[in-house]
């Protein structure tokens, strides 16, 4: 009987040996807030964009923002007036249709750094530098620094986002196979006990 399952075994080793085709089919959702815009990125596990996915932003179960992702799977919108000046925790839900759905929790702290950056920064500056800047200059400088940092950090952020949703690799596959062998062993044990 063992020999007769040669073919499935060969098939299966082929599947195992081809992790470069190994591409998942799940929905990945990322959301961040910058430059006054809430950006939501929706993609399938294989990296293709989840275009025309429905994006819903919820605050404690109530919809505050709704829209559809573009062909690149990106949805961008300014925060609605209801959220101005507040920084609640938000839940971003992406529905790519056909039962594909993903969620992303956008914490209020992330929002606070972008929405209300003003008062926390100048207190950190020493008294020596503070007098040399007038209020508007300092605000402009802060905006410039923020913009530069955003551009510099964007590749890093993208890499981080990608790393967070890494594809299943050999480790996961071998782990799963180990479980199946273990379960088969348990079943064999159970079957033998059932009929002594």
């Amino acid at each position, binding site marked *: *009987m*063992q*020999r*007769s*399952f040669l*073919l*499935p*075994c060969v*098939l*299966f080793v082929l*599947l*195992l040996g*081809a*992790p470069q*085709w*190994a*591409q*998942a*089919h*799940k*929905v990945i959702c990322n959301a961040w807030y910058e430059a006054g815009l809430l950006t939501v990125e929706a993609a*399938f596990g*294989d990296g*293709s964009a989840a275009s025309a996915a429905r994006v819903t932003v919820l605050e404690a179960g109530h919809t505050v923002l709704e829209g559809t992702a573009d062909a690149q799977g990106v949805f961008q919108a300014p925060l609605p007036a209801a959220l101005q000046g507040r920084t609640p925790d938000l839940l971003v*839900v992406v*529905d790519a*249709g*056909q*039962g*594909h*759905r*993903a*969620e992303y929790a956008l914490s209020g702290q992330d929002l606070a750094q972008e929405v209300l950056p003003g008062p926390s920064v100048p207190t950190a500056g020493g008294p020596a530098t503070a007098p040399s800047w007038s209020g508007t200059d300092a605000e402009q400088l802060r905006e410039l620094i923020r913009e530069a940092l955003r551009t510099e950090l964007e590749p890093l952020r993208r890499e981080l986002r990608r790393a967070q949703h890494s594809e*299943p690799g050999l480790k*996961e*596959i071998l*782990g*799963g*196979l180990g*479980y*199946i*062998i273990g*379960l*088969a062993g348990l*079943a*064999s044990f159970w*079957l*033998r006990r059932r009929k002594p």
Partner: protein
Amino acid sequence: MHISEGVLSPPVLATAALLTAGGTWLGLRRLDDERLLPVAVLTAVFFVASLVHVPLGPSSVHLLLGGLAGLLLGWVAFPAILVGLLLQALLFQFGGFTVLGVNTLNVAGPAVLCHYLFRGLLRSPRRASLAGFLAGAGAVLGTALAAALSLTMTDAGFLTTARMLVLAHLPLMLVEGLVTMFVVGFLAWTRPELLVSLGCCGGGPALGGEA
């Protein structure tokens, strides 16, 4: 086909979970020492197959191979596919725990149906290949329709969803039909007695000692 968590309503999830539990119980009762190794191998194949992406057609789909497990295992496909999906949810984050019941039902249900529809063809090697193709393609079609049916309450209505899902799964039907045809045809040619012993696990006496 993995329906994600949070899409379906609790009544749909509970009904599907109950049906899956019933199917799994039936399958476990039919499991015996003889069939254990093929079941384990087919579970492993099903588990890994979901990683193979078929880049054809309008949306991205992956191999299922439910038809292969169903045709060869009958009701035992239920526990096999349940274990495969559980491990996929655990290790690959495909699907999820609350939707385990409905996803198992959508894959294993049509697979078991294919077993009863096509096992009569397993008697001769030539027709076994045909049975393989029909079961492979039929199970994918059945799974797409079952998924559309479970999404009826939540998505754009049954007909729209079904049309989209079936269209997306057409290339997969062809690929799975060919893979299943190849595997079953090979088994029928080299080890026909295995197909007979496995085919009997449906419980019926349809497959005699011939072949």
